């Protein structure tokens, strides 16, 4: 029995998972949610590296796959290196080296997820806290455009609405929970107050709350985004009455009209609330280490996502250097997709651009990206078969453990293999030219 393993599925990074291992295989997982159990128990894997020959993927050695991947990246004028949210910070570091080495653009899955949050936070700053602080102190919690009951199933019990902490011993009974959403989710069913807003009206509703919190309710109309002024005034009063309040927000707000401006406005609301009481705000990060790639990119290049290394120095301009924009403009001529399934998760018209360029995939599992890849390199699963560092949604770094052995290399080892091949092929070319 391995005790207190860290789950590598979502941004909660639950660190109380017990795993029974027998004969080198995971036999049983305790404490994990359905999402975490599914990942740790494991399922169908890509068994061998593959290279496309005459239109079909055929088994190859790891070294052949590294060499072909390096060849593709070296031949490209502007390769995209995308994914990184479901792998370790150590792999991210090697990926950034590779992007610099081959002159590519490195982007993470944040750009189709909390990218607008990252931009909004850059504009305003983040009045944050650890999840432990929320658990121990928060008496009022707002879930805005997020549904942790399905996306982060243990969030409520471990860190938020239903958790019992040092100064919150009553747990759910002692907290006020407000859920703001366009639909009544499972999370909404656990709320004291569910506020249904009209789709795309987040910005207006947040603005109205800012006015009410600031005592300028006279400028608020009778109905904002389908919510009555009386209701909004009631919510504003609840927020101001909190001793310690926390706002958790999700893709309901980042994917909707207003996008990063919604986040910018929510941060202003929290700043306003801090004139009256203590309030914090946190994005509900989805993939377990999407925070980590942001951290590693930020400390190594100065930017948290969508970093273009083709100009000799790092350059960041989302809308121009983000993966979806680059593909929509057909502005990249090769792609390395690691720990992500871009073909499934990008808009169809964007994903179609990947079919026209050579794609290298590094992933444990077969998915639609596999099917149009030129090179496929299977890897060990970080947090199950390989160790590494990951950042929880609150920015806390945790060490993921290796639970079972694997014959497959880690993402980090694969990236080192490709980097070495890049160096080797460069040297060969230089010698030939000399």
């Amino acid at each position, binding site marked *: 029995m391995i005790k207190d393993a860290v789950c590598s599925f979502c941004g909660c990074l639950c660190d109380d998972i017990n795993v029974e291992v027998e004969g080198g295989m995971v036999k049983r997982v305790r404490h994990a949610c359905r999402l975490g159990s*599914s990942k740790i128990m494991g399922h169908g894997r890509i068994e061998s590296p593959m290279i496309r020959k005459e239109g079909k*993927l055929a088994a190859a050695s790891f070294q052949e796959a590294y060499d072909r991947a390096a060849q593709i990246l070296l031949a490209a004028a502007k390769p995209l290196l995308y994914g990184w949210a479901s792998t370790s910070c150590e792999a991210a570091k090697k990926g950034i080296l590779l992007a610099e080495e081959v002159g590519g653009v490195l982007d993470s899955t944040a750009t189709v997820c909390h990218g607008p949050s990252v931009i909004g936070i850059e504009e305003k700053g983040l009045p944050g806290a650890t999840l432990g602080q929320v658990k121990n102190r928060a008496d009022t919690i707002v879930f805005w455009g997020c549904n942790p009951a399905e*996306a982060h199933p243990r969030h409520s019990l471990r860190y938020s609405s239903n958790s019992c902490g040092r100064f919150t011993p009553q747990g759910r009974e002692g907290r006020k929970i407000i859920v703001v959403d366009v639909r009544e989710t499972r999370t909404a069913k656990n709320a004291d107050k569910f506020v249904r807003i009209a789709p795309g009206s987040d910005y207006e509703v947040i603005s109205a709350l800012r006015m009410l919190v600031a005592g300028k309710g006279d400028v608020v109309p009778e109905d904002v985004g389908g919510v009555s002024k009386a209701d909004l005034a009631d919510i504003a009063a609840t927020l101001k009455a909190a001793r310690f309040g926390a706002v958790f927000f999700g893709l309901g707000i980042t994917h*909707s009209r207003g996008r990063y401006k919604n986040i910018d406005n929510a941060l202003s609301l929290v700043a306003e609330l801090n004139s009256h009481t203590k309030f914090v705000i946190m994005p509900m990060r989805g993939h377990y280490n999407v925070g980590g790639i942001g951290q590693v990119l930020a400390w190594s290049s100065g930017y948290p996502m969508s970093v273009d290394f083709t100009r000799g120095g790092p350059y960041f301009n989302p809308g121009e250097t983000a993966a979806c*924009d680059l593909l929509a403009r057909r502005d990249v001529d090769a792609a390395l997709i690691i720990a992500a399934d871009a073909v499934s998760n990008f808009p*169809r018209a*964007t994903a179609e651009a990947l079919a026209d360029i050579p794609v290298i995939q590094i992933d444990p*599992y077969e998915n*639609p990206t596999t*099917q149009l890849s030129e090179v496929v390199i299977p890897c060990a699963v970080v947090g199950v078969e390989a160790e590494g560092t990951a950042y929880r949604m609150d920015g806390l770094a945790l060490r993921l453990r290796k639970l079972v052995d694997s014959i497959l290399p880690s993402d980090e080892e694969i990236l080192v293999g490709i980097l070495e091949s890049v160096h080797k092929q460069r040297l060969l070319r230089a010698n030939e030219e000399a």
Partner: protein
Amino acid sequence: MISGRTLAQGAGCESKMSPEFFKAAAVCHLSEKDFKSLELSEGKNVLLKNEFGQVVLTAKADAGLPDSMVFIPMGPWANVIVGKETGGCGTPHFKGLEVEVAATNSPVLNIRELFSGMGVSGYV
């Protein structure tokens, strides 16, 4: 149309080629009233169409949804009807899209069929 995470979609998102993921993600949730007004029943399909594309999904009534709103689990089926515009911030509109919904007898494409037009080929 809005798209987002569900428990079943999340549990299957790293085994995308499996029948479980197909069952979890190739689904369109409608309000109970819309479900009835389209004369749907459990297991019937709907065709969703907009300027970006069209996709057939299995219809499911959802008491939590308001009328005139559909919810699709995030992933390859939902993304057929998502546009590539990012509004200058890198993130497409995965939510808040206008879409026409009609009952259909057409089948739901499985994941290999869904990408068959994209130069997909099998393994050796």
